[in-house]
């Protein structure tokens, strides 16, 4: 299995992401954002975390115009799997590959800590190795993770089973760190091939670092 990890100016989680994907047996190639096409036979494209273009204007707003994003859009259009983590999620929202928008955290602080996540749906490739109701421990690290979508859009997300993960405490009770609508931490598109989440599964792949739950998530892409 081959994965492409896209690197923008200001991306800073690309090596952690590469490490995590290689750990579960992916061959990984880094793709600079100036590239206009992706290699053939890529099984997964990951937009990693960081601060692409310094978060200028809005997080992810400038990155969507990088040449590689046209290729990523076409790849997704053809059914290819795309995963956006943190800033990658913000880029997918700005690119309209996923619905909704990100706002500053409700308490206006940058939050960096381990957080509980509850699996809401596993009827998709990404979370296929998890069970509904599973509680995962994954680090979050963001200042703009306050997910917003209007009521109509939210209803569509639920109707199509697109809400994948919500924030919770260690017992699975709802615990909202950033003000996101319905404590949503991760979603997918209607076709269920484009995924976005604010937490960092790639930072939870070694028990010595506190959790291996990220492996369970990423392994879904192995099929």
């Amino acid at each position: 299995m081959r994965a492409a990890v896209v690197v923008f100016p200001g991306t800073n989680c690309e090596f952690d992401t590469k490490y995590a994907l290689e750990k579960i047996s992916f061959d990984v190639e880094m793709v600079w954002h100036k590239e206009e096409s992706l290699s053939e036979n890529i099984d997964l494209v990951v937009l990693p975390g960081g601060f692409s273009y310094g978060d200028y204007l809005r997080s992810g707003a400038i990155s969507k115009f990088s040449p590689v994003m046209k290729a990523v859009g076409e790849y997704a259009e053809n059914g290819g799997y795309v995963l956006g983590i943190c800033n990658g999620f913000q880029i997918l929202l700005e690119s309209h590959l996923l619905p909704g928008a990100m706002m500053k955290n409700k308490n206006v602080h940058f939050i960096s800590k381990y957080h509980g996540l509850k699996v809401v749906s596993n009827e998709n490739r990404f979370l296929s190795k998890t069970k509904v109701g599973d509680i995962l421990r994954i680090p979050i690290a963001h200042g703009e993770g306050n997910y917003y979508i209007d009521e109509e859009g939210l209803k569509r997300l639920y109707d199509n089973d697109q809400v994948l993960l919500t924030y919770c405490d260690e017992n699975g009770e709802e615990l909202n760190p950033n003000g996101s609508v319905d404590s949503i931490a991760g979603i997918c598109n209607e076709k269920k091939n484009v995924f976005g989440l604010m937490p960092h599964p790639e930072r939870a792949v070694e028990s010595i670092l506190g959790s291996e739950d990220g492996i369970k998530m990423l392994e879904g892409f192995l099929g």
Partner: protein
Amino acid sequence: MKVVVNVSLKEGVLDPQGKAVHHALGSLGFDEVNGVRIGKRIVLDVDGEDKEKIKERVKTMCEELLANTVIEDYFIEVE
């Protein structure tokens, strides 16, 4: 020509920054403030004479980049 674009969060969308500033003003004793909304002011220096045409172009800029119309409104002033 100078064009000013004001971008603000839509009504009904909670403004975390505005709320924090509102709270801080309250702590300073400015009890008369009923609400605070924070936005962005983007000043463009644009070539051209035709104000209507410029406004139309800047509107496209707003839709494509300057504002995220999912959560933000924009207002254009051509000076």
